[in-house]
């Protein structure tokens, strides 16, 4: 039904898409796979009319079409489910669906008819939703259903799904896939964009891999493996799970007792949480985002007030101490916001590395910063952690996400911390850098650091953890040993089902 032929899109200095051919048949799921910057989003934005291709043609049902805007795209029955939902939170489901569409009753809205149609669609595709519900009250999974219904309501025959599983629990993902399959059974075509290789293998009929704007592989799902796909994405063999030599588990290095923390909106984000992390282990924290992970990590780092409970690092009480004091007690913290609080975009690599120990005597000479010592230190870390940067004086913002993350990791680990809290250490990072970061985390574990790794990516949690703790509504709902854990078990806990 769709054929994109020879699509080329240039941005100044970058070839975002180079002669890309891409087709979708009715009734199939065609996956677009590639790393950040590979050109997937550009291609889809061209299809959805957000960008214009420099070269190439688009055919729909054999007819050549020009798509100049999303309005054109919708008129051609193309729908797009964005990763970040495009919903008005204060309106109801029906109002959101009707938004932008002409009413049958002239200037007056016709919401009853809209609601009826929503219920009909919802029934047919198993998308249980109340048309009268106000969007802000809905959970993330439900909001996504609203987005899908919005597209179906506009009679989208070709649907683009941009990382739709990023915010869902494994069970919700399964449910979504059932719905998507029903849609293809009706003869619709789906374009699925994802990073998660096992999901790609579970859902797709065909897979197209992009690397640096060019197609590096177009394969049917039969015969494809995670390794073969990763190879096409990165261009070399990739170890998806690092080798983990056994390490003797040591004493409790991080001890959290009855911790309560407020969220940004004054809600109780963490409620009486208990947790212990031992030296030499990686404790993975699994959970759907927004269940208190960020608040817990910030409380440990002294960045957010704990309203109750205690935190001990290496046996020393650090509850509500200043961030500097907590660091002095051996905490290193890799935040989830690389350029929000992890690093300063306008600071050079060297300055960013200096950030946590600019008062250290080693880098001072008669009260002034000793640039020679700082340079040596930076060069050593950049080299040791394979941070790709032209010079150490390059601003951090000119580095790729993976290299910024490696730079932060290098800085945080340089003091051989007692406890490392790593929040989403590889989110948005290319596979090569992620592989490297995983390797370093495992190395740090061998040096007896207690590592708490918070991740929404279950693959990552399973690949690295020794134990897996699941956080739900600000509490640890269960802890299981990696060896005995199953995805189903973790998924149920992520949804709030307490283990027996």
């Amino acid at each position, binding site marked *: 039904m769709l054929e994109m032929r020879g699509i080329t899109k240039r*941005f100044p*200095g970058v070839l975002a898409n180079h002669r890309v051919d891409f087709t979708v048949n009715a009734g199939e799921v065609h996956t677009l796979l590639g790393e950040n*910057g590979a050109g997937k989003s550009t291609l889809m934005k061209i299809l959805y009319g957000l960008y214009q291709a420099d070269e190439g043609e688009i055919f729909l049902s054999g007819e050549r079409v020009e798509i100049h805007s999303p309005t054109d795209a919708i008129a051609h029955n193309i729908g797009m489910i964005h990763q970040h939902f495009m919903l008005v939170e204060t309106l109801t489901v029906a109002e959101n669906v009707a938004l932008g569409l002409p009413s049958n009753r002239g200037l007056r809205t016709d919401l009853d008819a809209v609601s009826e149609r929503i219920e009909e669609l919802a029934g047919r595709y198993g998308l249980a939703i109340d048309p009268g519900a106000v969007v802000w009250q809905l959970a993330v999974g439900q909001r996504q259903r609203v987005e899908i219904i919005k597209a179906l309501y506009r009679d989208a025959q070709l649907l683009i799904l941009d990382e739709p599983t990023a915010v869902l629990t494994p069970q919700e993902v399964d449910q979504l896939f059932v719905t998507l399959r029903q849609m293809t059974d009706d003869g619709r075509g789906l374009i699925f964009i994802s990073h998660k290789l096992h999901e790609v293998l579970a859902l797709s009929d065909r897979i197209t891999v992009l690397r640096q704007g060019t197609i590096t592989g177009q394969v049917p799902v039969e015969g494809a493996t995670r390794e073969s796909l990763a190879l096409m994405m990165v261009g070399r063999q990739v170890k998806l799970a690092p080798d983990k030599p056994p390490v003797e588990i040591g004493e409790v290095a991080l001890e959290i007792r009855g911790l309560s923390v407020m969220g940004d909106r004054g809600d109780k984000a963490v409620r009486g949480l208990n947790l212990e992390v031992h030296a030499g282990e990686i404790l993975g924290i699994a959970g759907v985002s927004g269940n208190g992970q960020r608040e817990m990590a910030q409380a440990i780092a002294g960045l957010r007030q704990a309203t109750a409970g205690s935190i001990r690092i290496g046996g020393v009480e650090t509850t509500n101490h200043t961030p500097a004091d907590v660091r002095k007690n051996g905490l290193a913290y890799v935040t989830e916001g690389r350029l929000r609080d992890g690093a300063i975009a306008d600071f050079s690599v060297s300055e960013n590395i200096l*950030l946590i120990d600019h008062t250290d005597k080693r880098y001072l000479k008669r009260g002034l910063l000793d640039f020679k010592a700082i340079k040596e230190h930076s060069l050593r870390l950049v080299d040791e952690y394979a941070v790709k940067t032209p010079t150490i004086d390059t601003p951090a913002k000119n580095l790729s996400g993976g290299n910024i993350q490696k730079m932060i990791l290098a800085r945080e680990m340089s003091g051989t911390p007692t406890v490392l809290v790593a929040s989403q250490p590889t989110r948005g990072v290319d596979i090569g850098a992620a592989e490297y970061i995983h390797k370093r985390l495992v190395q740090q574990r061998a040096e007896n650091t207690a590592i708490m790794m918070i991740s929404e990516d279950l693959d990552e949690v399973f690949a690295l953890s020794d134990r897996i703790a699941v956080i739900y509504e600000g509490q640890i709902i269960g802890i299981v040993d990696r060896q005995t854990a199953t995805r189903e078990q973790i998924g149920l806990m992520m949804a709030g089902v307490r283990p027996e």
Partner: protein
Amino acid sequence: MAQAETNRRSRPKFVAYLVPLGAVVLALAIGAIMLSLLGANPVEGFRAMLDGAFGSGDALIETALKATPLLFVGVGITIAFRANVINIGGEGQMVAGALLATALALALPDLPAVVMLPTVLLAGIVGGAAWGAVPGALKAYYNVNEILSTIMLNVVAVQLMNFLLRGPMIDPGELERGTRIPQTARLQEGADLPLLFGNGRLHIGPLIAVLAAVAAYILLWRTPLGFRVRAVGLSPDAARYAGIPVKRTIVLAMTMSGAMSGLAGAVLVFGSESHRMVTDGSTVGFTGSAGFNGIVAALFGGLHPIWTIPASFMFGGLLVGGIALQRAVQVPSALIMALNGLVVVFVVASDRWKKRLQEQPARVDDTATDGPVLEAVVDDGGGGP
């Protein structure tokens, strides 16, 4: 598109520094139109202006003296701006510094000259620092907008000045004669700023200002404190996370910024020809608007203490030359104020353009990235492998 910006052809850095210069030229061009409309010859006017500002030794001295408070204030502004605090309170801080320094000079008339001068200059620093620390603390701890609080403290300072100079600090001679001009007695000679070439008008004020600019440069780029100030200014979140006391750093930056203005106030008093502090009831009467013009000088200098030195000198020349222009072509003094105003508006507005030019980093070598980072920004928050 981050990449689109990044890979646009890079320009040499100095182009960005030319932007404010272009803004001045544009402002003067509009000034020329205004002059023509008033029936004056703009060429003749501008020649007189240039001559009056830079044309002779005396003119240069006059310009340097005029530039001195601008430079002090401007340097203070660069420190505050680096911490991302906008200090509009230069006027009030100048007055506060001048008042404390004058009060001390009046209170300790018997100090030997060697001790006197450093003491009163230090008093100026302390007075201005206090006047800067208050809005700094209000911002850091109570989230009070510093633009509002500094402007309001300007008003407080001028009232304090009027009260003190009309009452407790007034020259006893004025009371005896019954003239009651609000001014202090002639301050002790030990507090006079030494002259640079024996006689004449050029005192050591400009020299101190240049030293202050160099000191501020060293502070900001060579010391841990300056590093913290810049980190807090660029990203308070990242600074806090790295263990930097953000609130304390903001207060400190404002304190140092105020200290510079306070020093400007003290230099204005002890370098004045009457060697006393006088008020005409307004801040402008004392500061000559240096507290505001210093901000323009700092912007003109790219918020860099060293570049603020020539920028202040140029702006001082504009002020001095304006008077010459007015005399030469016989236009109302309001026009000179309008001309200065134009320069301020153009320079401040051009800052945006300048930033845009500066924000195009040098072309990044391909090795810097693992591939195009085009979507790294668009795809923010995308999942891992």
